[in-house]
């Protein structure tokens, strides 16, 4: 297969201007931005739900919303943030926008499948957040939907939740198939696998995880819906069902889901750091192997979420060891990023600040992750606020920080204008302070006896919960400079030129924003995407008409 024929894009189906972002566009760049904006909308929804949770927890008694509503809110918060914000944005948005550039293609391998994958998301998301109106009650058994609780809570809301997650999982599989095909089959002639930018490898590994594990989630949720609708007994102990089997199948997807949220972020950071440090990415080959090591290990660690369930001793032991060893390939990546910064010419701009925030937050979350991998340690803190603190350090302090870094880095490519740096730094400062204030105290709360998913708690924990809620408020406020920045930049932003960062990766070797066919002429062959310091930058003029 060679580079996709631009005429296959059917220009007559492509409205121009703003309208195309609301159309069934086949252009991977339009689809990428559709994912980004749609995801950000759901980020605000999920953030509002988090606001309800943190408001309820200001006082130790359940007094802000009803208990049923509280459980609905925490269920929707988790589901929205994972399936509608982080997974679609870190995979769908940046993956669709960047991967064709990185392999030297004019579009993804299957443009129509790509558009279908995106357009499954808005209806699934609207279905989910409107389930309170549609079904009278939203799902209230947590994003994990463990039976038998999920069999006893209001059935309609739970079924709507399952339907929505199935749609979102389907979208994710379509996207993954497309990424695998594009990276493996659509590379420009002469471009070798080991010359690809690291984000391609990250997306290849992530997509393998998606196609291997998401069907298992779909299967288990379909069985769960049979139990709810048709009163089968797969997971109903009264009918001889086994509730722990559900947990195994659920976590067989949902642990890899953590890597589906984190590996693409690793890839994006590997693109951002070399550009703003003016240095080659340190240890390219080991970075590739460590991604694949994480993919393999990520598939055999799921039962560490079940150390206090009905797991026999040998199983606890095996999953402790397998989980601990993920720290080795992950550690390699962090040491390599530090080595990338060492001896560079570091520009402390918003993209770099958010990337460094990611490194610190993720290392912290990784360390608490190693503690949680140890069975005896986990037996005390499992299902407590210690775990809540841990995974927010991974998915928010890790991935969401990278999403913001990526936004400052690629916004000039998307629009041709630079985001305002002062507002960007303010955004970083508020996010970093608010985030740590919100989630750091939660570790102590968990160690000392506060379980997760509760609307009421021991009054001894009031002060730290209030500190945490103040942090959440600062996080909410931190969204304002970002939104203001986007508006101000749209009105009178500084023109960026085609390559404001003097970057070497292929998406910068074309105009900003790029033409529909990505390059006016031939796609450039970028053999050294990180050749800072020694490779002469490819002349821009050669790639333009």
């Amino acid at each position, binding site marked *: 297969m060679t580079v996709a024929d631009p005429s296959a894009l059917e220009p007559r189906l492509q409205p121009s201007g703003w309208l195309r972002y609301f159309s069934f566009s086949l252009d991977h760049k339009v689809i990428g931005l559709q994912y980004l904006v749609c995801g950000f909308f759901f980020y605000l929804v999920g953030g509002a739900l988090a606001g309800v949770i943190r408001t309820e927890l200001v006082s130790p008694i359940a007094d802000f919303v009803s208990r049923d509503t509280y459980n609905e809110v925490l269920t929707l918060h988790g589901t929205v943030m994972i399936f509608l914000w982080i997974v679609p944005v870190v995979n769908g948005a940046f993956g669709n926008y960047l991967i064709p550039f990185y392999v030297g293609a004019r579009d993804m391998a299957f443009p129509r499948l790509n558009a279908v994958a995106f357009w499954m998301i808005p209806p699934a998301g609207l279905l989910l957040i409107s389930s309170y109106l549609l079904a009278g009650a939203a799902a209230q058994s947590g994003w994990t939907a463990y039976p038998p609780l999920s069999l006893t809570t209001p059935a309609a809301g739970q079924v709507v939740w399952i339907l929505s997650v199935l749609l979102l999982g389907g979208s994710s599989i379509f996207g993954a198939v497309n990424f695998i095909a594009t990276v493996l089959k659509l590379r420009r002639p002469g471009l070798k696998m080991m010359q690809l930018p690291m984000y391609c490898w990250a997306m290849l590994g992530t997509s393998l995880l998606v196609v291997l594990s998401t069907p298992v989630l779909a299967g288990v949720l379909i069985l769960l819906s049979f139990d709810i609708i048709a009163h089968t007994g797969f997971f109903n102990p009264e009918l001889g069902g086994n509730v722990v089997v559900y947990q195994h199948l659920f976590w067989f997807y949902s642990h890899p889901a953590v890597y589906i949220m984190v590996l693409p972020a690793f890839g994006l950071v590997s693109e951002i750091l070399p550009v703003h440090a003016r240095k080659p990415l340190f240890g390219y080959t080991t970075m590739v192997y460590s991604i694949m090591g994480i993919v393999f290990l990520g598939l055999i660690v799921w039962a560490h979420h079940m150390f206090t369930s009905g797991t026999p001793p040998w199983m606890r032991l095996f999953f402790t060891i397998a989980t601990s060893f993920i720290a080795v390939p992950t550690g390699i990546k962090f040491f390599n990023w530090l080595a990338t910064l060492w001896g560079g010419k570091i520009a402390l701009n918003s993209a770099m600040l958010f990337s460094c925030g990611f490194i610190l937050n993720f290392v912290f979350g990784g360390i608490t992750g190693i503690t949680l991998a140890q069975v005896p340690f986990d037996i005390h803190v499992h*299902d407590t606020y210690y775990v809540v603190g841990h995974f927010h350090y991974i998915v928010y302090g890790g991935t969401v920080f990278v999403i913001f870094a990526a936004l400052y880095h690629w916004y000039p490519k998307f629009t041709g204008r630079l985001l305002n740096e002062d507002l960007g730094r303010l955004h970083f400062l508020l996010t970093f302070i608010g985030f740590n204030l919100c989630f750091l105290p939660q570790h102590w709360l968990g160690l000392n006896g506060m379980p997760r998913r509760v609307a009421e708690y021991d009054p001894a924990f009031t002060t730290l919960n209030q500190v945490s809620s103040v942090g959440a408020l600062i996080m909410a406020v931190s969204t304002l400079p970002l939104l203001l920045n986007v508006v101000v930049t749209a009105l009178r932003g500084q023109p960026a030129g085609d390559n404001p960062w003097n970057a070497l990766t292929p998406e910068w070797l074309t105009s900003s924003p790029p033409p529909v066919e990505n390059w006016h002429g031939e796609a450039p062959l970028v053999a050294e995407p990180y050749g800072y310091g020694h490779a002469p930058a490819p002349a821009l003029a050669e790639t333009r008409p």
Partner: protein
Amino acid sequence: MQIRTAITAALATTALVGTGLLVGSRVSLLPVAASTNAPPYDSLFQVLFSIGTILFLGILIVLLYSLIRFRRRPGDVAEGLPIEGNLPLEIVWTAIPAVVILFVGIYSYDIYDRMGGMASLDHGGMHHGAMDLSGMDQVQPASTPPSSGERIWGGIGSTQAYLDQTGDGRAVATAVPPLPVEVTAMQFAFIFHYPDSAITSGELHVPVGQPVQLRMQARDVIHAFWVPEFRLKQDVIPGQPTVLSLTATRPGTYPVICAELCGPYHGGMRTSVVVHEPEDFLAWVTQNAPQVSA
């Protein structure tokens, strides 16, 4: 210059490791220790906290140093050093974490073994019988006949830590057989039943120093039995009996908390465990045992 760098690096590493160990040995973030399981848990916590502190401070210092030392000055358009990798360095930072992880794994396995985690789950089950709560509607599990040999699906089978800590463990173990307690979890309460004395209570009462074996089953949805001061937790699962063995070491009253989302009143599903001196426990048993006419 090479030697100066090496000495600086060695001094910095020593200082870092020293700080980590010092912080780890002084850290106090946990509630009081009230079971034999808690002291080994707390030493595991200190070891992990030391390693975590060394790693986090090390990375923080390198990152901040790089950002300051290698920041781009205004007007500087030069590129960074074209270093693409360094194999010996990569081997070092693969091998050191691997060794540390291996050490942590072996150490936590040892702790888990000392907690009794590797003991057979059915240990002691034959003597006292397992609960058979299937299909029961009555709150009084006393009337259910004990059926021996029912499968235990998970948990901690014996309190090995107690044996280790008292030195002459075997003698103690034979002298003090575990006190069996049947735990039933339901929305939104725990019920504790003592088959030996036929007491049924909403609070757990245990004597200090004697092993206790909780045999647990849920009636509706999954719950979890958690006592932070004991550093122990076990899910209570409908259809799959689990077991949790513990030995309390400190008299007092501690919270029993449900740690698995179980419905709207999950946050309110709490009770207490009262750890008595042995003679006080006997008094409590005498006071509360139902009067059975022989």
